[in-house]
């Protein structure tokens, strides 16, 4: 099981209603339903992923989060999850606003571009970083708006989006991120998981 999913599952109370945007093959939804009896829904673009969710008995809607979030009513979910896809949208801010409209709270995770290995690749080799969390090369990456944990932290501040909790993940280690340790955690976390709204 991915550490990220474990962290997300721990952030969520049982018996809630959750929408997983970009739910993939439904791994996270399965986990949430099994361990927390959460009423899950998914939104997914890829046909074969959609089919896998359906085979698992997971409710999933085939569609594009960039253009089709409007179909979900205001505040219709307790939580909306967006796992590692915010940076791939044309208009991440617009998507984030939509998530905050649909969910009472939102969980957003991002691959951290501020992670030290990413920084050194660019600094010492002068090349766009290719790492485990960022496996694509510059010409075929779906990521249009890479950001760091610090960037998203500041963005929420600026846009008056309430940050309830931020968790940094590095392999099996997780740590809580606050303003005070932001610089250091931004350097040593591969992944940032934000609970906002």
């Amino acid at each position, binding site marked *: 099981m991915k550490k990220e999913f474990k962290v997300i599952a721990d952030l969520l109370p049982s018996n809630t209603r959750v929408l997983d945007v970009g739910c993939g093959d439904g791994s996270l939804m399965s986990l949430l339903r099994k361990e927390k009896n959460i009423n899950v829904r998914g939104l997914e673009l890829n*046909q074969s992923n959609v*089919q896998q*969710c359906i*085979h698992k*008995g*997971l*409710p999933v*809607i085939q*569609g594009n989060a960039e253009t089709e979030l409007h179909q979900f009513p205001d505040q219709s979910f307790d939580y909306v999850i967006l796992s590692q896809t915010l940076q791939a949208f044309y208009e991440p801010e617009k998507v984030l606003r939509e998530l905050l409209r649909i969910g009472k709270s939102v969980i957003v995770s991002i691959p951290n571009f501020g992670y030290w290995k990413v920084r050194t690749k660019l600094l010492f080799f002068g090349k766009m970083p290719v790492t485990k969390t960022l496996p694509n090369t510059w010409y075929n990456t779906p990521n249009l708006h890479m950001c760091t944990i610090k960037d998203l932290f500041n963005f929420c501040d600026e846009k008056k989006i309430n940050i309830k909790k931020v968790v940094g993940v590095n392999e099996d280690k997780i740590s809580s991120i606050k303003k005070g340790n932001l610089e250091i955690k931004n350097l040593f976390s591969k992944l940032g998981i934000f609970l906002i709204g």
Partner: protein
Amino acid sequence: MPSLAGLFFWMNIKLENIKKLDVKKPLKLDCGKTISNFPLAYETYGKLNKNKDNAILVFHALTGDQYVTGTNPITNKEGWWITAVGPGKAIDTNKYFVICANVIGGCMGSLGPRNINPKTNQPYGLDFPVITIKDMVRAQESLLDHLGIKKLLCATGGSMGGMQLLQFCATFPDKTFSAIPIACSSSHSAQNIALNELARQAIMADPVWEKGKYVLKNVQPKNGLAVARMVGHISYLSEKGMQEKFGRKLQEKADYEFSFNADFQVESYLRHQGYAFVERFDANSVLYITRAMDYFDLSKQFKGGLIEAFKNQETKFLVISFSSDWLYTTKDNKDIVIALNASGADVSYSEIATDKGHDSFLLDEPEFLKTLKGFIDSMYEKFKNEKRI
């Protein structure tokens, strides 16, 4: 009284082979008239298990009938959904008990315009009441009682079958555990109505039709009915699919004939489809059924619109559309999903990428059939567990 079988002579139909339920309960139709003691023809496949939790109801489309799979005993052709239903198929009849009824207004044994009007002892013709999708669905409810099924595992249908299904879920919210509306719409669009009107006008323009009284003479307005079918067939294919299948290919000839015979393959195909259809379908039934489709607007039946129609749904939905379907588009199907979402229902949706147009749901489309199977099998597991608890 003219014998009913005699009226079918041009179709060579053996009526005694048709399973029928005599529906005793009077049914007040949307038009205000009441029918009672009417025949509802149906067929079943597979076996109903002890717990009665493996029943799947299929609603058929405009020109379909109750013979979903196997060999249709009346036409001796394959059942219309043999690609999806049968032993080992997506809807596996080794596992599930599949039921399908002929719609009222139809011509495969259920009460329709070809039946005898007890008031006149003549076939109804245009004296048959105008029916709606809701009437069709309510007429089929008694079949579930008759078969002793309290709650279906699943109900499904494509095209008009999907419309019946949406109506079924709205009218009887607790009769099915899951539902798969396929390539349908919650209301007929102007274009849908226009195409149906074209079909009806073609029938009515045939001099043999005689305001629907052709039945008395044991004839059928073949030319008009064939044109009506051709219209339908064009709308079931996509532009690209048609181009790929036929292009400008000529029909068994090297060059143009400089005549109005079927020079092009596409013409020959349409003519064949048209004339094969008149052997098995009744012209007045086309009028009545297309009318029912045109009147269909689920949101109109509920004050709060479509969202209200699906309120308090416990049924788990899977809506499926086909990317190249221009008759009931992806947008039409997505509107259903949006309404289901807004009403808080449990809904899945998949758009199958294909060039085959509206007809896709009847064809061997692997992605579609896999999705269908995955959903039904997973629903069966859930339904069994729920019943156990």
